């Protein structure tokens, strides 16, 4: 059933796929993010309790959802890599990690900036913020582990195991933190728990969610291409690609402009 996917295990095909997908992702991200953001900032109604500070939700919630989504996607990629022995799967896993970490950072930062007017403090140890912070640490762990290996083949496998360990842990972390928070009778009353949200508020949120997803996809394709070039540096097709794209002049390394025949 998944046969059609297999050719993309080859790096060259995966690179081509990235090139084809990339413009659509960028356009999608640009369109959705502009519509969602303008709608959310200017046209969506105010929250009756929180006023206009509520508008931070249009970036906070999508980034928070996608920070977790990206981690799950990484874990899936790692699993695919392990089961089918695909190098490209590991590569796409590691291509996703930095953008996932950025999403987590955005969720944390916007959470803090929203919390300040609502709770009177930049940071409170609320269950969600705490789990999000731990998620950031998990991302950092995967990235650091990958960076620590010189052999990137091995690094991908090790980071993949770490991503899987993390994804198993995410629900456990989430519930334990929630339980811990109720145990300590939460420092604040969470105002995020609006069970229902008006549709005119929901639409821009969904559009922005889509925009962020497109953006993650776009950055992932760029980074996956980077990863492929890095790992396949000595393959002829990469060298041909580089020669086509780099003007002769710019290769200004000491090796490039050395005096000849010394």
């Amino acid at each position: 059933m998944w046969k059609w996917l297999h050719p993309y295990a080859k790096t060259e095909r995966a690179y081509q796929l990235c090139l084809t997908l990339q413009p659509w992702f960028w356009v999608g991200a640009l369109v959705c993010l502009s519509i969602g953001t303008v709608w959310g900032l200017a046209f969506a109604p105010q929250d009756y309790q929180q006023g206009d500070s509520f508008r931070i939700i249009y970036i906070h919630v999508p980034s928070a959802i996608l920070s977790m989504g990206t981690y799950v996607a990484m874990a899936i990629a790692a699993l695919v890599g392990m089961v089918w022995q695909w190098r490209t799967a590991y590569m796409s896993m590691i291509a996703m990690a930095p953008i996932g970490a950025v999403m987590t950072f955005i969720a944390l930062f916007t959470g803090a900036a929203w919390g300040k007017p609502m709770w009177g403090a930049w940071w409170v140890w609320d269950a969600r913020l705490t789990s999000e912070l731990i998620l950031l640490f998990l991302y950092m762990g995967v990235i650091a582990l990958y960076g620590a290996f010189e052999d990137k083949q091995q690094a991908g496998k090790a980071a993949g195991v770490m991503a899987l360990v993390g994804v198993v842990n995410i629900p456990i972390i989430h519930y334990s933190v929630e339980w811990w928070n109720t145990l300590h009778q939460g420092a604040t009353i969470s105002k995020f728990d609006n069970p229902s949200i008006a549709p005119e508020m929901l639409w821009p949120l969904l559009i922005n969610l889509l925009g962020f997803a497109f953006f993650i996809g776009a950055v992932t394709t760029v980074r996956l291409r980077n990863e492929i070039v890095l790992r396949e540096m000595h393959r002829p097709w990469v060298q041909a690609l580089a020669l086509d794209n780099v003007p002769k002049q710019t290769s200004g390394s000491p090796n490039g402009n050395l005096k000849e025949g010394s």
Partner: protein
Amino acid sequence: MLEACGLTCSKRDRTLFEGLSLVVNTGELLYLRGPNGAGKTSLLRILTGLSEPDSGAVLYNGVNISEDKTGYYRDLFYLGHKSGTNGSLSALDNLSFWLAQHSISMQENTLYDVLAKVGLVGLEDVPVRYLSAGQQRRVALSRLWLKPAKVWILDEPFTALDVKGVHLLETSMKEHVSRGGLIITTSHQHLSETAGEHRVFDLEYRF
């Protein structure tokens, strides 16, 4: 002229040598021989002043080296088991930082020439840890051509070098001696004809 007078050294309560004296004149190559654990490295480190002997003194041109370190170190080149190159820096960076520490000014082109001489063309800007053991050794040895030192103290300089590397090093040792230099070296392989005349000094393993 390098002189050792009555050197005694003990490591982990075992006496490596006692009352050892030797004289090496300029224009001479001293080949220090001995089984593993005889104390060759310890002797060389004492001769450079890196370690202190339990008793005895090392004289360079008649002056105790602990009294005139700067004068001695201006004339000394020492290469131990450790290459003294940082793995994350390139050969070029390693050498230029080393030269700066030894107050030697040199043009970058000369560095490229020397690195080409030791067979490292194209690897000048690669972090040293990516090089093979022999290539790393060559980076370390390239300093021989960079510092105008009279005294070379080389501890196992041939380790990890291939045939060409050994040949290159032996030739330059011979040249150095003929120019009135002074070399003390250890090696587990015999020095070949290329290295020129040399005097052998045997260090016995003591129990």
